[in-house]
C-alpha cells in the first residue's frame, strides 16, 4: 500500500518535471524561468532539511485540523440524523454552506485571528470539514432497517446504539471518506500558510514565490507529496486494521 502510493506520486511528480523540461527546452526558456536539472538537484540538497521540517510542521497542523473536523462533523451529523426540525435544519444548512468556496473565507479568519497556529488550524479544519460533514450526515441519517427494527420494536433503541449500528455498518465508507478528506486537510493547511502563517511549508513556498525560485517550489512539492502519501497510507492502514478487528471473530 505504501509503496503503491509512493510509486504513484513519483510517476506524477516525474511526469510534471518532464513536462516542465519539455517546455523549457522546446521554448528555449532561461534558467530563471525554469531552472536546470542541476540547479534543482543543488537546491534539493541545500533545502531538503529545512523544508522537511516545514512539511512536518504543516503535516502536524493538518492532522490536528483533520481530527478537529472529524470530531465536529461526527457531532453535527449525529444531530443531523434526527428527523425533527433540528436535523432538517442542520442538513439543509450543511448542503447550502458546502456549496460556498470556503477558501474565500480564509482572509476573514486571517483578519480576525492574525498569523499563527489558530488561523492555520481553523482554515485547515474548515476546508476538509464540509465534505466530511455531507458524507457523515448521509451515513448517519440512513436507517439500517434490518438491524434497527428489533431495537425499535422492543424499545431498546438509544441514540448511541443507533449511531453505533450505522457507523459499524458503514465503516468502509467512513474510512474512505476520512482518507479522502486527509488530502483536503493538507491543502487547507498550505492555503492557510500562504496567507496567515510564519511557519510551515506553505509559508516557505510563499517566500520562494516572492524570490521567483521555481527550484525551491519543486523541492517543496516533492516533500509535500511524500508527506501526504505517508499520512494517507497511515490512515488507510489504521482504517483497514479497525475494519479487520471489528469484523473478525
Amino acid at each position, binding site marked *: 500500500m505504501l509503496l503503491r502510493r509512493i510509486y504513484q506520486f513519483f510517476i506524477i511528480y516525474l511526469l510534471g518535471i518532464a513536462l516542465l523540461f519539455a517546455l523549457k527546452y522546446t521554448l528555449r526558456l532561461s534558467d530563471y524561468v525554469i531552472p536546470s536539472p542541476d540547479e534543482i538537484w543543488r537546491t534539493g540538497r541545500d533545502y531538503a532539511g529545512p523544508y522537511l521540517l516545514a512539511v512536518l510542521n504543516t503535516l502536524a497542523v493538518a492532522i490536528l485540523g483533520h481530527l478537529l473536523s472529524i470530531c465536529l462533523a461526527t457531532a453535527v451529523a449525529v444531530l443531523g440524523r434526527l428527523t425533527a426540525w433540528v436535523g432538517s435544519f442542520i442538513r439543509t444548512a450543511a448542503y447550502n454552506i458546502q456549496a460556498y468556496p470556503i477558501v474565500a473565507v480564509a482572509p476573514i479568519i486571517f483578519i480576525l485571528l492574525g498569523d499563527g497556529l489558530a488561523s492555520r488550524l481553523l482554515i485547515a479544519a474548515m476546508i476538509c470539514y464540509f465534505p466530511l460533514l455531507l458524507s457523515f450526515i448521509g451515513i448517519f441519517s440512513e436507517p439500517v432497517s*434490518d*438491524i434497527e*427494527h*428489533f431495537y425499535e*420494536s*422492543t424499545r*431498546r433503541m438509544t441514540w448511541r446504539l443507533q449511531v*453505533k*449500528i450505522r457507523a*459499524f*455498518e458503514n465503516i468502509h465508507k467512513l474510512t474512505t471518506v476520512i482518507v479522502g478528506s486527509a488530502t483536503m486537510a493538507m491543502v487547507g493547511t498550505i492555503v492557510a500558510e500562504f496567507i496567515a502563517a510564519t511557519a510551515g511549508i506553505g509559508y516557505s513556498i510563499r517566500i520562494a514565490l516572492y524570490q521567483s525560485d521555481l527550484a525551491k517550489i519543486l523541492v517543496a512539492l516533492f516533500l509535500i507529496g511524500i508527506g501526504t502519501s505517508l499520512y494517507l497510507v497511515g490512515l488507510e492502514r489504521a482504517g483497514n486494521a479497525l475494519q479487520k478487528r*471489528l*469484523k473478525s*471473530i
Partner: protein
Amino acid sequence: MQIDFDRICFRYPNSAGDLFNDLSLRIAAPGFHALFGPSGVGKTTLARMLTGAVAGFSGAIRTEGVRQVFYTYNLERLPGWSSVREHFAETTPAANRTRLEELIAAFGIEACVGARFNRLSMGQQNRTNLVRYLLQDFDVLIMDESLANVDELTREKIILKIKALFPERCFLYISHNVAEVARFCSQILILRGVSKAPQVVCVQGTDLAQGAVPPPERLERAMLEIVHAA
C-alpha cells in the same frame, strides 16, 4: 385474547388501486395461526398495521388482551460487533433467561452462538433472529417468512417447539407453503385480491401438536380448502 380487523380500507400513497377494501377478519384465540396468500396481496401490510407501523387506513383494529405485538421477518440481522451469545445476553429480559438455553438447543444453534451473525448460514441467521424475539415479552408474534431459509425438517421441529413452549401466546405465521400451514396452523387466514369478496377467507388447519399425527383426510381437506380459497 382477540384481534379484530373491522372493515379495513387502505391504499398506498401514489398507488393506482386499493390494497384492502372492506376487509374484516378475527383471530379469536391464542395459538399458531397463518396468514396465507399470493405475493403482493397485502399480508405484510396487514401484519404491520397490527403493530402500528402502517397508518392511514380507514376502519378499525380492535384487540383484547394484547399488549405487545412484535413483527419479525427473515431479512433481519444482528449487529456484527459481538457474538450471537453476547447479543442474546444483552437483549433477553431477566425473567426469560431460563428459556435461552432451551431455545438454543431446540433451534439447533448451539454450535454457532459463539460466532458473529454475519458468519452464520442464512438458515442459522433466521433461527437466531427468531430466538431473540421469542425471548421477549410479547402477546402476538408475527413471523413473516421468518424461517424461509431453514430446511423443512428443522422448520417442523421449531414450529412444534414454539407451539409447545408458548401455548398462551398468539403467532401469526406468514408463509407460502400450503402443506406447512395446513399441518401446523390453527386458523389459516387466506388473503385474496381486492377484487374478490370477501377479501379474507378463514380455513381451519389441523393444528398439529408435538408427537401427534394428523388424520390424512383432514390434512388433505384443509389443503384443498386453502388452494380453492386462494
